[in-house]
């Protein structure tokens, strides 16, 4: 099927490439950086064009995207299933809240601190995690997520118990002239860009190659001199770090943390979102974040009486249409469309 048109010579005489052709060729060859550039431009412009409510929605999309970047690293790139990602998200959120509430830590400082905290915890929990595989890791991480909720309620002096903690949201510095929601948006945007950059760097380094080799064939990797255990542990810790950073952004944006905000459903939703978005792809976390944000309200618009019925069906429907996630969808359609474009020429 792939060979049907790609190599077919044109029927007419070849003409000199026009300027338009060259532009198309350039766009086709460099579509990635162009797309990223356009996306960033739109992202920078959006908060000035949209109502605050939409700005808030996009902020939350980015918060989820950062968390999903971490999950993507673990599930998509290291092949380890975690059902406890929400727990690290919660630790990041609570860590940030506690630092701001009890110790008046400047909020910008809470971002690296929350990330470091979850990285350390991830590294510690990564020791048993590396010994478990597949299903068993999923269940143990699920257990962590379940246990965290009563634990948060128990340590009331730090966490505020079941009432949670309410905080002042970060206010925009006056020189920016920005509204509060715009400022939060740009903080989240900066966090997201940073997270994408870090994960890109990470995956192109030795670590990334080692992770892929472990995911694809652990034994072969071991033979090649890669120590699977230590890399899996590292992937676990890095994924926790991204979740923690996302948790920090969450606390800034919502200004309130409570144990009921971080039930095990958050972990399950995150896993569903990254699979729906596209495992192992760069765009996956962003698409997953969009799914988490917009599909529940869409479901309510379709069926007011039982939104869950529609939401469940939509998850199943996406998996039908795009078994490798939404990010894989263009890949499934693209060969067919490029074919058409080429034939037109």
């Amino acid at each position: 099927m792939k060979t049907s048109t790609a190599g077919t010579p044109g029927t007419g005489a070849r003409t000199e490439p026009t300027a338009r052709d060259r532009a198309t060729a350039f766009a086709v060859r460099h579509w990635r950086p162009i797309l990223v550039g356009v996306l960033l431009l739109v992202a920078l412009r959006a908060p000035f064009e949209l109502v605050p409510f939409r700005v808030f929605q996009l902020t939350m999309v980015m918060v989820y995207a950062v968390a999903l970047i971490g999950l993507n690293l673990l599930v998509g790139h290291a092949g380890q299933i975690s059902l406890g990602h929400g727990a690290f998200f919660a630790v990041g959120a609570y860590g940030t809240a506690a630092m701001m509430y009890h110790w008046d830590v400047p909020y910008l400082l809470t971002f690296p601190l929350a990330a470091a905290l979850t990285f350390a915890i991830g590294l510690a929990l990564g020791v048993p995690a590396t010994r478990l595989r597949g299903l068993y890791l999923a269940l143990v991480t699920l257990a962590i997520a379940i246990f965290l909720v009563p634990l948060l309620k128990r340590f009331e002096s730090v966490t505020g118990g079941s009432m949670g903690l309410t905080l002042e949201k970060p206010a925009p510095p006056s020189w920016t002239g920005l509204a509060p929601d715009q400022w939060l948006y740009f903080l989240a945007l900066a966090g997201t860009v940073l997270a994408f950059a870090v994960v890109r760097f990470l995956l192109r380094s030795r670590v990334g190659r080692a992770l892929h080799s472990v995911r694809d064939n652990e034994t072969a990797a071991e033979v090649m001199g890669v120590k699977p255990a230590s890399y899996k542990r590292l992937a676990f810790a890095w994924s926790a770090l991204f979740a923690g950073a996302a948790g920090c952004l969450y606390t800034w944006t919502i200004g309130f943390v409570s144990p009921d905000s971080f039930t095990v459903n958050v972990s399950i939703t995150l896993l569903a979102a990254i699979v729906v978005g596209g495992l192992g792809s760069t765009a996956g976390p962003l698409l997953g974040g969009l799914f988490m944000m917009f599909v529940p309200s869409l479901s309510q618009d379709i069926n007011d009486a039982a939104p869950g019925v529609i939401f469940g069906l939509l998850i199943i429907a996406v998996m039908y249409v795009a078994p490798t996630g939404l990010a894989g969808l263009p890949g499934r359609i693209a060969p067919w469309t490029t074919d058409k474009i080429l034939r037109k020429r």
Partner: protein
Amino acid sequence: MADFLQQCVAGLSAGAIYASLALALVLIYQFTGIVNFAQGELAMFATYIAWTFIDAGLPFWLALVLTLAISFAGGMLIERVIIRPVEGAPELTIVIVTVGLFIFVNAAAGWIWTFLIKDFPNPFPDGALRAGGVSVGYATLGILAVVGAVMGLLYLLFRHTKIGLGMRAVATNPESARLVGIRVGWTLALGWGLAAMVGAVSGVLVAPLLFLEPNMMGGVLIYAFAAATLGGFDSPLGAVVGGLIVGVAETLAGAYVDAIGSDLKIGVPLAIILAVLLLRPQGLFGRPAVERA
């Protein structure tokens, strides 16, 4: 001492509940190699179907038989309609489809039957057997007996029938199984049907104790996962023993360890699981997976 024994009995009765659903989880894992998040919700839905029959005036046992038949057919139908299109997709895709199914079934039950609590008749007599200062409810004994019987039947099915053999072949390697003439699709559908049926038994058993409402099985599912992990996902006996251990451990910890208390008692079975997995990754009764490198 009598108090301690009484606590153990309480733990066993909780454990029997977890074990009943764990059996369904083990069953579907054996047939299809996936973890079905929707298993508990399917059990809850089946219980509502039984409730509807009983509410309409049918005798309990007739309602039960009808429910089991509907569950079996429904499970197979779900496999054909919902799982079949993603067969061959990455394992995680199928798991997420079951998450979607979970959300769908839960919401659908609330939509159809409302969230009001329903009273479900207890098939076992009230009262308790008393011996040496310890009383064991007939309901608990009844559940244990049924769970034991289901476990025995599953064991026979797995080990001594052709279906069981085919099922193991499909779960291990669908491609090779197809080559030797096993109808893979049919086997998978059979797995879903049987698991839905075992789940329905579980739902009907626990509904009189927990009260029927759409979130009835949500809490049980987590413990059932724990039980299956502890016992090994490929052993019906393991699922039952795992369930009982989890039940007893959390009850005793909640009752006797003050620092843990009733809020953190869920941590105890989790700690046990972690310990077991680190020492025996295949669970207490599971067989180690041998991989050819």
